[in-house]
Every structure is written in structure tokens, then in C-alpha cells.
């Protein structure tokens, strides 16, 4: 189909042909290299920030790491040895970074276990929660945005007002409201725990995922709506309609595809936001995931775990952003070619 479309399409205006062909072959590699380099550089600087944040706290680092626990001499000695506190700062950092790259994330004071083991045990719940929230966000957000964009007048106004209200509901308020309505009021969904595997898990995670996603459902819907509205006015849509294509195929192939760019752009922010907000949602619904672990570790002054989770979330954000940057040219080749003009 795509080939036929190209054959039928009028020849594009001839630019400086030789240069265009050459750069099209050379650019993707350069583009990818640049993005990957930016990814590594950002992660490196972020790791510096996360590691050296500890040095902002005045006083003895060993006592800081042992806050809330009895600072016995042997404990202080143990923590000094474990974190290498007697070594210079840069050496501590290199050891920490080397450890992270080799899967040694330090030891948790609370769990008396390796941080990586604690994290891995909690990861599935959080990933399932975030994945379910992402499904809700994609399905409900795109649906609401598309419906709003295609129904001018009352429907659009109604959805827009609902979205503005929904976007202003903080996740923890949404969680409380959903529990009040669906757990206490109607008794349809449980308000606590993550259930057993399979459908029971999904049943338990439905309310948390909705609470987690509500802000982003509104955000994705709004971006979809405005992005589609922008596309609907463009000439190529008019041309497609005048060629006799059905409304559905015009919307799916000529409006939605072009509208995807801005929607993808927000997904990096979205994933980081979901991971961070999951701290609050998991705590509210008693799910033992990474977010709950982060809050507990702050509560129990277990700094090694906090450091590791902060690094994981930042890495997830940077990684998703890079992936989005790499996918975008596939949807809109003008971005890689650097000739994007809207």
C-alpha cells in the first residue's frame, strides 16, 4: 500500500538532490550516535548528582548513614568499611559507580540484604502497576482526545471541561476518591493488597492504576485533541478527503499518524511521572513495589536504597526519552533529516 501511495503521489519538489541523498544515508547513524552519547552523558552527570548529594549533609557521614540506629563503635567501623568512607570522595564515587555497573548496589541497612535483591523482589509489582496504568492512559487518553477532536461543539466542550477537572486531581486524591466510590461504596474492587497472579492481580491493580494514570489520561487526551485539531485543518487531510477516502481511514492514516509525534514526546515525562507517583499510590493501596520501598526507606533512613531507587527512576526517564527520540524519525522522517517545519 505504501509503495502504491508513493507511486501515485506527485513528485516532490526537487531540492539539491545530491546533497539530500548523501545526507539521508549518513544522518541516521550520526543521529543515533548523538542521542546515545547524550544518554550516557546525562546518566553520568545524574549519577554524580545522586552520589554527591550525600555530601551536602554536614557532619560525620558514618553517623548520617546510621541515623536512627545505635551508633556503636563497631557499627560505625562496619559502615565506614562498607561505604569506604575513609577513602577520598572520588574513590568512593568510582567504587559506587563500578558496583552499580556490575550489579552490586550496596547493602540495605533495614533488610540486611543486597539492595539489588530488595529492588528485584519489588520490581514486578511496580512494573505491572505502571504497565496497567499505561494501558489505561493510552486507551482512555487517545479515545477521549480523538472523540473530543472529531465532535465539535457540545461534545468537545464537555470532554475538555472534564479533562481540565481530571487533570487537576492529584493521584493521591484520585486514589481516595476511587476507594470511597468503588471499594467502600459499591464494593466492586479491593482497596488493599496486590492479590495473587493472573486476573486477581489485574482486579487488585485496577483502582491503583486508574488513580496513578488519571493526570496523564487527561494530559494525553489534551495533547491528542490539540494535535489532531492542528492536523485536521491541514491541506493533506483535505486532499485525502477529496480523493474519496472514508472518514475512518483519513483519521487513522493521515490525521492520527501525524498527530502521534507530540503524543510520543510527552511519554518520557509520563513514565518518570508514573514511577514517582507510584510511591504514593503503592503506599495508599498497600502494594509492595519500588515506590512503597522508597517511602519506607526514607522513613527508616536507609539511604543506600533511596539512592538506588532515585538512580533507577532517573535512568528510566532518560532512557525512555532517548527511545522516543529514536522512534520519532520513523514516524516523521523530517525530524532526523532536520527539516521539520510545521
Amino acid at each position, binding site marked *: 500500500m505504501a509503495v502504491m501511495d508513493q507511486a501515485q503521489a506527485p513528485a516532490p519538489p526537487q531540492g539539491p538532490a545530491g546533497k539530500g541523498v548523501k545526507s539521508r544515508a549518513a544522518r541516521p547513524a550520526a543521529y543515533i550516535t548523538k542521542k546515545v552519547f547524550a544518554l550516557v552523558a546525562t546518566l553520568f552527570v545524574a549519577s554524580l548528582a545522586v552520589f554527591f548529594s550525600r555530601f551536602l549533609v554536614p557532619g560525620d557521614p558514618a553517623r548520617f548513614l546510621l541515623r536512627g540506629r545505635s551508633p556503636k563503635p563497631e557499627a560505625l567501623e562496619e559502615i565506614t568499611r562498607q561505604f569506604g568512607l575513609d577513602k577520598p570522595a572520588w574513590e568512593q564515587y568510582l567504587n559506587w559507580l563500578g558496583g552499580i555497573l556490575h550489579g552490586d548496589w550496596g547493602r540495605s541497612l533495614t533488610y540486611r540484604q543486597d539492595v539489588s535483591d530488595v529492588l528485584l523482589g519489588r520490581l514486578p509489582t511496580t512494573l505491572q502497576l505502571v504497565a496497567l496504568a499505561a494501558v489505561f492512559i493510552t486507551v482512555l487518553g487517545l479515545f477521549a482526545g480523538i472523540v473530543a477532536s472529531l465532535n465539535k461543539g457540545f461534545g468537545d466542550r464537555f470532554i475538555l471541561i472534564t479533562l481540565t477537572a481530571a*487533570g487537576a486531581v492529584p493521584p493521591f486524591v484520585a486514589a481516595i476518591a476511587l476507594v470511597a466510590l468503588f471499594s467502600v461504596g459499591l464494593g466492586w474492587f479491593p482497596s488493599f493488597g496486590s492479590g495473587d497472579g493472573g486476573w486477581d492481580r489485574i482486579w487488585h491493580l485496577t483502582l491503583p492504576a486508574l488513580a496513578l494514570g488519571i493526570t496523564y489520561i487527561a494530559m494525553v487526551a489534551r495533547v491528542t485533541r490539540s494535535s489532531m485539531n492542528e492536523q485536521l485543518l491541514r491541506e493533506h487531510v483535505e486532499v485525502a478527503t477529496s480523493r474519496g477516502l472514508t472518514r475512518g481511514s483519513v483519521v487513522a492514516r493521515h490525521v492520527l499518524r501525524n498527530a502521534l509525534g507530540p503524543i510520543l514526546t510527552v511519554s518520557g515525562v509520563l513514565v518518570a511521572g508514573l514511577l514517582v507517583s507510584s510511591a504514593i499510590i503503592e503506599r495508599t493501596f498497600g502494594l509492595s513495589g519500588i515506590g512503597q520501598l522508597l517511602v519506607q526507606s526514607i522513613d527508616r533512613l536507609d539511604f543506600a536504597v533511596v539512592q538506588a531507587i532515585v538512580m533507577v527512576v532517573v535512568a528510566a526517564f532518560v532512557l525512555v526519552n532517548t527511545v522516543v527520540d529514536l522512534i520519532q524519525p520513523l514516524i516523521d522522517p523530517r525530524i532526523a533529516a532536520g527539516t521539520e517545519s510545521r
Partner: protein
Amino acid sequence: MTLAISLPQAGLRRYGSLLSPLAWVALAVAAAVVLLSLFAPVLAPYDPDYVDLNNVLAGPGAQHLLGTDALGRDLFSRLMHGGRTSLLGPTIVVIGSTVLGLLLGLVAGWSEGWLGKVLGRVFDLLFAFPALLMAMLAIALFGKGLFAPILAMTIAYVPYVARLAQSLVVAERSRPYVQAYRVLGFRTPWVVLGRVLPNLIPTVGAQSTLNFGYVLADLAALSFIGLGVQPPTSDWGAMIEESRGALLGGYILPAFWPALVVVLVVVAVNVIGEELSDRIGGKLS
């Protein structure tokens, strides 16, 4: 493509004279909440921490306007007092991040050399740390309460202001009026602070207004999970947390009122912020 022709007008004039009816309502709601919180010590009918175990979970009525919580404390009084901590945090964060962001954005936008590039990279990096995450890291370092999250969120919101200011400064820099001042030999600090800065304030102000809502929600969330304002100090987020037991027992009101106030304030602030940014016609992310 519409061709937008905007002349550099004197700063705040760009806000226009009249807001829409919806924005007026939002402004009235916000003003009412601020005034009630500000004058809580004078206006509140009860001591917010006064426990009355004979009057637990009372419904709304003449004695207790909005009812009482699980310890018999007057919800209306607690809401008014809670507004003081709940609004103070976002106010400090927004003022701090706006001032810092404007300054850094001005420097980054004005300097064409390495300084602008480095600052741009720093802003990009800061975006990788979500505000709530930064706040939690700060709490892990400096302890629970309002100080650590306020400090962290001020820093976290600087790039939102600074990036915007930077792009605006770059646009302003090439405008004829700036060129004219330079040709006439006016000193750079005078041109930047006296003539360019006022033109940034409307757009940046709109962004900062929107930021206020996000910060309020995040700080309330921190109090809700027990990392922010500590009980028994009343705070909207902490009030919702305290009311969870009552909620599961079927008493919705103690959690409903603070939740309603949080949502109302955030909606009001968002409406005002979006109205302002629409009026300016600037594109806010």
C-alpha cells in the same frame, strides 16, 4: 500558519484588562481560600487541635459547619489552619523558582557563548529529576518536614521557568528596540533588567501560576504519605491521610473536604494560569 505580530508593550499591560467569567470565579475561589487560611487564627470557630471525643465523626451542622473528624476535631477549623502550611510551601517554591529561573534564563539567553550552552545543558539535566523525586531525595538527606521538599522543589522548578525565559530572551534580543538601545550605548544590565525583563514577566508569570498548582499537589501528596508536614499540625494532605480509617468505615466527609479543597485550588490556579497564557498567546509546554 497565522502570522502573529506582537509589539513589545509595557510588561503587565499584555495581561489585558478583563478576565473571562470562569477566570473570575477561579480568582474568587482562590482569594477566598487564601483569606480564610490567612486569618484562620481569628476566624476559625474552634482550636484545630481541640479533641472532643464526645463529638466524634459528627455530620455537618450548626455546631460544626463541616462536621468533625475521628477525634472530634472541627473540620472547618482544621481546613482553615491547614491552608496555612498547604499554601505557604507552594508560595515559597514558586517565588524562589521564578526569581532564580528568571535570572538564570536571562543569563543563558543573553550570553551567546559557552555560558548559555552550559546553562542549557544544566536545565536539561534538571528536567531528568522529577520534582517529587527530588523532594523525596532531599527528605532522605535532611529529614522530614517542609524545609527539605521546599528547597528541592524550588530547584526542580527552576528549569521550567529558566527554559521559558531563555527562549523569550533569545527572541527579544534580536528585536529592534534592543538593537536600538545597544546602538545608543545603553549599558547591558540596564537594557536586560530594565527593558527586556518586564517583557518576560507576563509569560513567565503564567507559567509560574501553573507551577503553583503542581507544587501544591506534590507537597500535599508528601504530607499524605507522611514525609511532609508532620501531625498534629493540620495540613490538607495530612488531613486526608488521617481520615483513611474513617473512610474505610464509611465516613467519607473527613477525607472529602480536604480533597475537595485541594482539587478546587488546583483547578482555580490552572484556570487562571491557562487564561493568562492564552491571553499572552505564548506557547507554554
